[in-house]
């Protein structure tokens, strides 16, 4: 199309040149043709006309060619004028056609723009509605999440409270048990203390010691007298009641007589007490004996009362594990 237009343009220019060359003084000039050429030149330079009215422009070009040809063949100026007039009107027709099509395009563009605007407006409304719904949904989810957290915290607090209550109950129970145990221990200790008191037991660095005086034995004899037997009976009952306790029975004499006879006598007296305990059902494994003769005197052997204190049997009570500290 462009090539054709260019060719036509060149052709027209050529015709113009020829017209100028051929324009001898005798030849009458058509001003209408001049106008038509100018109009055609303008129309060709207008891209809208070229694009929107190509058929009309071609038709106008052909009309102009006919006018130019008439001019070249030196036809009557009225004939040239008439042909140029027709060409001019056809050029105007091409321009009007371009304007009309432009206006029609504007109509359809505006309609399309309205449709687009309405669509956009509806899309915006829908978007806004969706956004509102999304925001509302988010709010709901947020509240639900907060509720979950609050429930979880409440549940944890309930669990903590339950645990603390259980701990408190346990502590109370333990305290009560401890108090009960302490009371029991106290009672046991009091009972044992009372029995030890009855046996005239004394606390020494080696443990509890029960001393049986020589009044329980006849002079130079190892048989327990009946009073001594009652004391041994109390000891046997104590040992039955506290079966974890053991006893070491130690015999002593005063300094009267030979060492060997005193040694033998101290052993015999310790054995007499041991046998008495055995007779009262105290196990042999819980009773041991030892004689020390005249050693470990507790008083002076220079007078009668001192010697009487030295003639004795001491019974060492073990601790709760059966241990007795050595002398």
């Amino acid at each position, binding site marked *: 199309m462009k090539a054709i237009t260019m060719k036509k343009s060149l052709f027209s220019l050529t015709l113009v040149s020829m017209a100028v060359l051929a324009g001898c003084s005798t030849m009458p000039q058509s001003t209408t043709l001049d106008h038509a050429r100018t109009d055609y030149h303008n129309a060709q330079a207008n891209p809208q006309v070229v694009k929107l009215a190509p058929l009309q422009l071609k038709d106008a070009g052909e009309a102009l060619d006919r006018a130019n040809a008439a001019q070249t063949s030196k*036809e*009557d100026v*009225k*004939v040239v004028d*008439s*042909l140029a*007039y*027709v060409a001019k*009107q*056809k050029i*105007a*027709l091409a321009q*009007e*056609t371009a*304007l*009309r*099509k432009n*206006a*029609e395009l*504007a*109509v359809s563009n*505006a*309609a399309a*723009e*309205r449709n687009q*605007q*309405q669509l*956009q*407006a509806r899309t*915006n409304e829908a978007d806004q509605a969706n956004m509102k719904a999304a925001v509302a949904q988010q709010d709901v989810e947020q509240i639900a999440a907060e509720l979950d957290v609050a429930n979880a915290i409440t549940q944890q607090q309930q669990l903590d409270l339950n645990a603390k209550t259980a701990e408190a109950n346990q502590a109370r129970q333990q305290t009560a048990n401890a108090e009960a145990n302490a009371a029991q221990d106290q009672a046991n200790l009091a009972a044992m203390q009372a029995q030890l008191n009855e046996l005239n037991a004394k606390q020494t660095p080696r443990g509890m010691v029960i001393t049986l005086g020589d009044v329980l034995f006849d002079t130079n004899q190892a048989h327990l007298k009946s009073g001594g037997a009652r004391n041994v009976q109390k000891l046997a009952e104590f040992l039955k009641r506290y079966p974890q306790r053991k006893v070491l029975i130690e015999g002593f004499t005063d300094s009267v007589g030979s060492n060997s006879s005193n040694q033998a006598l101290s052993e015999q007296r310790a054995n007499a007490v041991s046998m008495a305990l055995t007779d009262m059902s105290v196990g042999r494994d819980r009773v041991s004996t030892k004689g020390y003769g005249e050693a470990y005197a507790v008083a002076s052997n220079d007078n009668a009362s001192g010697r009487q204190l030295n003639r004795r049997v001491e019974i060492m009570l073990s601790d709760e594990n059966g241990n007795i500290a050595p002398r």
Partner: protein
Amino acid sequence: MVGCASVAPPTAQIAVSKAAVAHAGSAATTEFAPVELQSAKDKLARAEQAMVKEDYALARQLAEEAQADARLAEAKSETAQAQKAARDSQDASRVLRDEINRKAQ
């Protein structure tokens, strides 16, 4: 050369021009391109007179001019109507745009 007896009568051209003038002679053309329409009618009348005088060359010239005038008149009328429609349509678009903007605020 003008009015030479060897020129044949442009009967077909006269008919075509008559049809073109008749086609262009609507109320809209009268409103939007009265000058061109009137020119077409005058030239057609003169072409018919030339036919009667057997001046067939002149008759052909006038008939062709009348046809060109009639076509241009019609085109101008159509263009004017299309431009009016474009303005109306653009006005409608502007009104709609304003309305949508008001709603959005």
